[in-house]
């Protein structure tokens, strides 16, 4: 009987040893089998779960009245991890190992393993946490955590969309031929533009011949501009090439809506057109005047 009594604990010890060794062997085997990608997946999935799980854990252990203190380690871990992930995402397994080490450090810092936190979250969700107060508080804290995570994400999305826009503009700028510096208004001379210029020239000659004795020369010009504004809609509108300059890109990147920029550019181009008309009008007027003076047909009074 003594022998049997002695043999029973030995068997149990052996079983225990066996099970322990088996467990260790299993863990080792799993570690060996797991390649870097799986590890990375595991880390990332745990990281996602960790955000909520850890918050809930921290809720369990601390009061919800001090959310700032709760958020600190959370923000620390999530930001640190996300940074690491983005930095090391394209690198090889070596860096992945580094990441896991880092994860390990973070776990030490938190005091709970990553997947444990997940399990604890599962426990909480399963209803291990019986207090109804906890259940009521949880969504609020989750919301606050979501809020802290969403705002940088939204900012990131905004930044990325703007970056895409900037890249598109850049490609457009590259595809466009570089405009020569000499011609500031390098737009094509369309029908309406030619009409405007011709009208200004004719008006200048007519004004010098007949009108200027009685009226200031700018009055007919302003009238002509008003007429152009009315006539604008009757002319065929060619496809306006949207000019993408560095200024436009800079304004777009600084958050000004493209509609506002387009309107401003449109107004600016109209002002430029009026100025060009004025220059042509004045030039023609002076040339005509000088010609008349040289020819001696008329002397200025």
């Amino acid at each position, binding site marked *: 009987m003594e022998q049997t009594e002695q043999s029973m604990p030995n068997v149990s010890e052996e079983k225990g040893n066996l099970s322990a060794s088996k467990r260790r062997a299993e863990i080792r085997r799993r570690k060996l089998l797991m390649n870097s990608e799986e590890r990375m997946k595991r880390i990332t999935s745990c990281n996602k779960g960790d955000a909520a799980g850890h918050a809930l854990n921290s809720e369990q252990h601390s009061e919800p009245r001090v959310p700032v203190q709760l958020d600190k380690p959370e923000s620390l871990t999530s930001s640190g991890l996300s940074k690491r992930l983005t930095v090391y995402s394209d690198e090889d397994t070596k860096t992945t190992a580094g990441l896991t080490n880092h994860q390990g450090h973070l776990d030490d810092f938190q005091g709970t393993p990553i997947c444990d936190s997940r399990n604890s979250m599962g426990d909480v969700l399963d209803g291990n946490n019986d207090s109804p107060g906890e259940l009521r508080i949880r969504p609020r804290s989750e919301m606050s955590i979501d809020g802290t995570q969403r705002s940088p994400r939204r900012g990131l999305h905004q930044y990325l969309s703007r970056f895409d826009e900037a890249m598109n503009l850049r490609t457009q700028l590259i595809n466009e031929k570089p405009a020569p510096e000499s*011609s*500031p208004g390098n737009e094509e001379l369309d029908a309406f533009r030619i009409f405007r210029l011709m009208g200004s020239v004719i008006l200048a000659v007519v004004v010098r011949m007949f009108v200027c004795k009685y009226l200031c020369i700018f009055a007919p010009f302003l009238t002509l501009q008003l007429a152009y504004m009315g006539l604008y809609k009757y002319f065929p509108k060619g496809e306006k090439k949207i000019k993408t300059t560095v200024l436009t890109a800079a304004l777009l990147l600084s958050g000004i809506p493209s509609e506002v920029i387009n309107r401003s550019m449109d107004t600016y181009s109209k002002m430029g057109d009026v100025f060009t008309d004025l220059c*042509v009008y004045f030039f023609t007027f002076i040339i005509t005047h000088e010609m008349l003076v*040289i020819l001696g047909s008329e002397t200025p009074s």
Partner: protein
Amino acid sequence: MAESCAWLLVLGSVLLCNIVKALLPSVSSFLCRVLQKDAEQETQMRFEIQCMRQELATISMMDEFARYARLERKINKMTDKLKTHVKSRTAQLAKIKWVVNIVFYVLQATLMISLIWKYYADPVTVVPSKWIAPLERLVAFPSGIAGGVGITCWLVVCNKVVALLLQAFG
């Protein structure tokens, strides 16, 4: 007469500047051709490389490996030499263009400053002041003579019109 032709002088200067500016690339390339006399050597090298490549194509690599390798090495050497040559020539070309541009802009600036200096106090042309009634001060700037057309205003107008003309006919 000299005073009455001031507007024409300014207009002529602006026109000349704009025309020269439009012709700057041609001027630079002409200067490059004049200054760089080793372009023929480059052409010769290109021709030689082409000949050697043709010869290489006729040689069987397996039958005459030594000859093939020798010729290939020769081609590589010549190509490297040509590359270096082209690189230095391109750098020289860019330098010449830069110098030509700088000289032109300096000359243009000098011309404009001298014109403004000369006609600072005198208007380039005079019209009755009531013709340009509300803007006579602006138009007369910097001469300050009522009814006069100042050099700045005339320069701006001339530049705009000449640019338009060159755009239309250029």
